[in-house]
C-alpha cells in the first residue's frame, strides 16, 4: 500500500527534492560567498524583502497598477478576440479581408509597438493597456479561428440535416467544438498579457511591479528584483491554474488523455 502511494507521487517528490536542492545550494552559495550575494541574492534575503514589502504601501500601489493593466487589457482582448475569431472562422469573406492584417500582427512581437503606444497614450496606464491588449488579442483570435475551422463538416451536416437555424447551429455545434481551442488561446494569451505588463513597465512607467523591478535593478537591489520576478512567476502560475480549472468544467465530454 505504502509502496503504491510512493510510486504515485514519485514525480512530485522528485520535483520537490530537486527544487529544495536548488534552493539550498543557492542559499549556501550566498552564505559561503561562492558568489557575491549582491549579485545573486539568496532565498532568505528574498524572503525577508518580501516580508518588508508586504508592509509597504508603495508596493501595494505597484501591484494595483500592474494588475489593473493586466486585468483590463486581458479582458478587453477576450471581449474582442473571441467574437472576432468566431467571425473570421464563420464568414469566409471576413477572413479574406482581415487575414492579412492578423498575419502581419502575428509575425511581429507586439511589444515592438511600445514606442508608438507611448507616443499615442503617454507613459501612464493606457499605453500598457494597449500593449497588453495587442499582445493577448492575436493568439485569442488565431486559436478561436482555428477552432471554428476544425469544426468538422460532419457535425455541421447533422445540424443542417435536422434543419437547425443559424443561431442553433452556432450554439450547439460551433461553440462547444471551439471551446477547447479558445482555452488554449486564453492560456497562451495570458502569458502574452503578462509579458506586455512587464515590457511596458520596464520601458516607460511611473509605477507598477515591472517599474519596481527596473528601479531595483538600477539600484543593485538584487533581492527586490528577484522578489518582483517571483511575483510574476506566481501570477503566471495562478492564472494558468485558474484557466485549467475552468477548462475542465467544459471538457467532460472528452476522453482523458486527449486533452493536451
Amino acid at each position: 500500500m505504502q509502496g503504491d502511494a510512493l510510486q504515485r507521487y514519485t514525480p512530485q517528490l522528485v520535483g520537490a527534492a530537486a527544487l529544495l536542492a536548488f534552493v539550498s545550494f543557492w542559499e549556501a552559495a550566498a552564505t559561503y560567498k561562492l558568489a557575491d550575494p549582491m549579485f545573486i541574492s539568496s532565498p532568505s534575503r528574498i524572503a525577508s524583502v518580501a516580508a518588508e514589502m508586504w508592509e509597504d504601501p508603495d508596493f501595494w500601489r505597484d501591484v494595483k497598477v500592474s494588475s489593473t493593466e493586466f486585468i483590463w487589457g486581458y479582458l478587453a482582448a477576450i471581449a474582442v478576440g473571441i467574437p472576432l475569431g468566431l467571425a473570421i472562422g464563420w464568414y469566409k469573406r471576413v477572413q479574406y479581408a482581415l487575414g492579412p492584417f492578423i498575419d502581419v500582427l502575428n509575425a511581429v512581437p507586439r511589444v515592438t509597438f511600445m514606442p508608438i503606444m507611448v507616443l499615442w497614450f503617454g507613459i501612464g496606464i493606457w499605453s500598457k493597456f494597449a500593449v497588453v491588449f495587442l499582445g493577448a488579442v492575436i493568439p485569442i483570435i488565431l486559436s478561436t479561428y482555428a477552432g471554428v475551422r476544425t469544426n468538422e463538416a460532419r457535425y455541421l451536416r447533422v445540424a443542417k440535416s435536422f434543419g437547425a437555424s443559424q443561431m442553433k447551429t452556432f450554439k450547439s455545434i460551433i461553440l462547444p467544438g471551439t471551446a477547447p481551442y479558445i482555452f488554449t488561446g486564453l492560456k497562451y494569451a495570458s502569458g502574452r498579457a503578462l509579458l506586455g505588463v512587464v515590457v511596458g513597465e520596464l520601458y516607460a512607467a511611473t509605477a507598477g511591479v515591472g517599474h519596481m523591478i527596473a528601479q531595483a535593478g538600477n539600484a543593485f537591489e538584487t533581492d527586490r528584483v528577484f522578489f518582483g520576478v517571483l511575483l510574476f512567476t506566481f501570477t503566471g502560475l495562478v492564472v494558468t491554474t485558474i484557466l485549467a480549472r475552468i477548462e475542465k468544467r467544459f471538457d467532460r465530454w472528452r476522453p482523458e488523455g486527449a486533452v493536451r
Partner: protein
Amino acid sequence: MTPKLVAKDVCLEYRQPRTGDRLLALDRISLSVNEGEFVSIVGPSGCGKTTFLSVVDGLLPATSGEIIVDGLRVNKPGPDRAVVFQDASLLPWRTVLRNVCYGLECIGVRAAEARERAMKFVQMVGLDGFENSYPYELSGGMQQRVNLARALVMDPKILLMDEPFAALDAQTREYMQEELLRIWEQANKTVLFITHQIDEAIFLSDRVIVFSARPGRVREHVTVDIERPRSLKLKRDPRFHALEDRIWSLIHDDALVQARS
C-alpha cells in the same frame, strides 16, 4: 401502393474550382420507394450513392430533376426525412440522451417533452442505462444505435441511412443488421439504405437498386423475393447466393468497363 418517395430525372453537376471543369456526378436518377418499403442502393465506390442521399435529404440541391415526398416537391432538409449518418456523427459534447433530443430541439419541441420522447427511442434501440454517457464512452455499434434513435425520434416519413455500419467490425455489423430489422419492423418506417456491401443490401431490403459508376446512373432494380422475418441464417440460403452473384456481376462488369475506358 402509393410511392412515398419519388426521384425524377435527378442530375447533379459539380464545378471544379481549380480547373473550372464541370463534372457530372448523378445522371438522370429516377426511382421510387413505396410506403413501408426497405430499399437499398448499392454500387462501386464513387458511384454517387451518398451524394444521391444528400440530394434526397436536401443537403445538396439537384442541378435538374426533382425529389417528391408524399406528393410534395422538396428542396431543403425537413422533418419528413431523417438521416442516419455514416460514421460517428454524434455530437461528442452531448450525452446520448441529449444527442437523441437534438433534432427535436431544432424544430422547437420543449425540453421536457423532447427528453421524454427521446427516452422512448433510447430504450427501443436497447441503450437503457447509457442515456447519460458521452459518445466516447460507447462502442462503435452502440454509437450507431444512438444515431438511429436520433433519426427515429423525429418520426420521419422516410429514414435515410448512409452506410451506417461501414465502420463496424464484421461481427458487430451482422448483429446490427439483425437489430435494424427488428427495430424497422417495430417502428414501421420507409427506408432508403445506402451500402457498398452486397450481402447487407440483400439481407435487409425488399428491393436493391444497383448504381453504376461515374456518373451515377440507375443500372438495375433487383427485387428480393425472400420472406420476412429474416435471420442471419438466410445468408447461407441458395436464393441469397443467386441474388448476390447477380448483383456482384452487375457491379463487376461496370468496374471493368470503367477500368478500360
